[in-house]
């Protein structure tokens, strides 16, 4: 195996471990921290794929902002540990939903035609990518700002309602 592969496996293993912690930890903050680890390792994987910018964005947005957001959200719920039973009558439904999702992902993975020659990637340069972003994809870019705005407005409205009551 090449060095890159080794690195990939290590990163992937840690990412999966973090994901596992997210699912299984009873302490919600620990679960969130597991998620953060998984997200950070994903950034590493992006870099490994020569997608530097995406990797950095992953660090900046997920490692910084989203992580904090999740942690704050969890701390607002104020419970240190989940003390009530997590399973209930909806268990079969949850199983069904999970299985459906897994099947969908599986189908997607199987159905995708991966490029066969993976030894060599042609990284898109930073400048080319940026130019494309602001020329070809100008409209989606602007729409992104609207999406963000809507998210903000929604959050404010919800929070203010809660505060008033």
């Amino acid at each position, binding site marked *: 195996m090449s060095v890159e592969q080794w690195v990939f496996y290590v990163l992937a293993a840690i990412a999966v471990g973090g994901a596992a912690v997210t699912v299984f930890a009873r302490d919600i903050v*620990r679960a969130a921290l597991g998620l953060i680890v998984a997200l950070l390792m994903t950034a590493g994987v992006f870099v490994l794929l020569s997608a530097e910018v995406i990797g950095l964005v992953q660090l900046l947005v997920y490692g910084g902002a989203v992580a904090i957001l999740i942690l704050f959200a969890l701390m607002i719920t104020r419970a240190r540990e989940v003390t009530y039973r997590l399973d209930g009558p909806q268990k079969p439904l949850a199983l069904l939903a999970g299985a459906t999702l897994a099947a969908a992902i599986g189908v997607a993975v199987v159905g995708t035609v991966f490029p066969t020659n993976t030894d060599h990637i042609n990284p898109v340069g930073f400048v080319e990518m940026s130019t494309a972003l602001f020329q070809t994809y100008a409209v989606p870019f602007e729409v992104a700002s609207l999406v963000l705005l809507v998210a903000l407005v929604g959050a404010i409205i919800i929070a203010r309602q809660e505060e008033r009551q």
Partner: protein
Amino acid sequence: MMPVLGYWFGIAWLDAILRLAVIAGVMTVVVIFLTYAERKVIARVQQRLGPTRTGPAGLLQGVADALKLVLKEDLRPTTADRWVFELAPFMVFVPVFLTFVAVPFTRDLGVRFLSLGLFYIVAVSSLNIVGFIMAGWGSDNKYALLGGVRAAAQMISYEVPLVLTVLGVAMVASSLDIRVITERQDVVPYIVWQPLAFVVFIIAGLAEMNRTPFDIPVAESEVVGGPTVEYSGIRWSFFQLAEYSSLFVLSALGADLFLGGYIWPFGSNPPGWLQLILILVKTSFMILMIFWVRATFPRLRIDQLMSYCWKVLIPVTVAQLFFNGLVLVYRWPDILLLVFSGALLVGATAATAVAVRRAARRPRDAQAVRDRRLQYARGA
């Protein structure tokens, strides 16, 4: 991109390890010296002498402190969340250490010269916020929790103006490579074109490092150390190490971005030793300023801190970006960069001062306070 031949021994990974090892050593020494220097400088401001006993002129005080910290008992509250508590120092320290990777000290001295260096530093340095939350949550201490949450809120808020200011410089230089940005300043350092950015950079940097006047999360007189309150000995020292390392990195970065780093005023190609002296002098200048501020200012309150960031710093820095773009895209003369930035700086400063004065003179909305008190009184 760096030519492969430039690597020590010609091997990239070995070179990386060696350079990082050097950085680790230098960083430790620098931090030890900085703690000493800070105590000395602040002592002089206060007409004291500072450490004088340990070694000549107290120079070994930092070493003695470090030794003491290693030898201290490592305590952890029994109710603390063990893993979160013990891993927090890692999460706080490692990102700061990682920022060293991209800071060029001279043209050849630095671990790596990333073409996205600025982006990288910003992205990585935002990670240690999580560490503060972990420390605050993991300690199971109310002061720590209060401080940790404050730290996180403050650091995320000031991350934004910090990013926007370095972006102002990046726009002028049209590059994210710190070395390129530095070398574009061979004639005029960017502090001249972007005075607002420089001031905001220092302010936001202070807030990022939780230093006075933004030391709210670790405020000694309120939350007695904040997230670090339960940490002792070596574990605590990593918070300290992180703080002073980031002080150093940020000062070096500020010197590179705004003060012409290792070249100005000697043109584009001073000899290596001169580069080193230049960067050291400029970094020390930044650090001294920060010490001076620390010795002078009271601390803001969390709501004032937040509103200062969101109501003053972010609007003006965004406005600066806009004016920068205007000047650069339409190829107006460079002097307009200074005019706009300076005008924004003066305007923002005056507006803040006037707002504070006016708020001080105007009687407070007494009814609101009374209502709140009444509401509390009824609730209790």
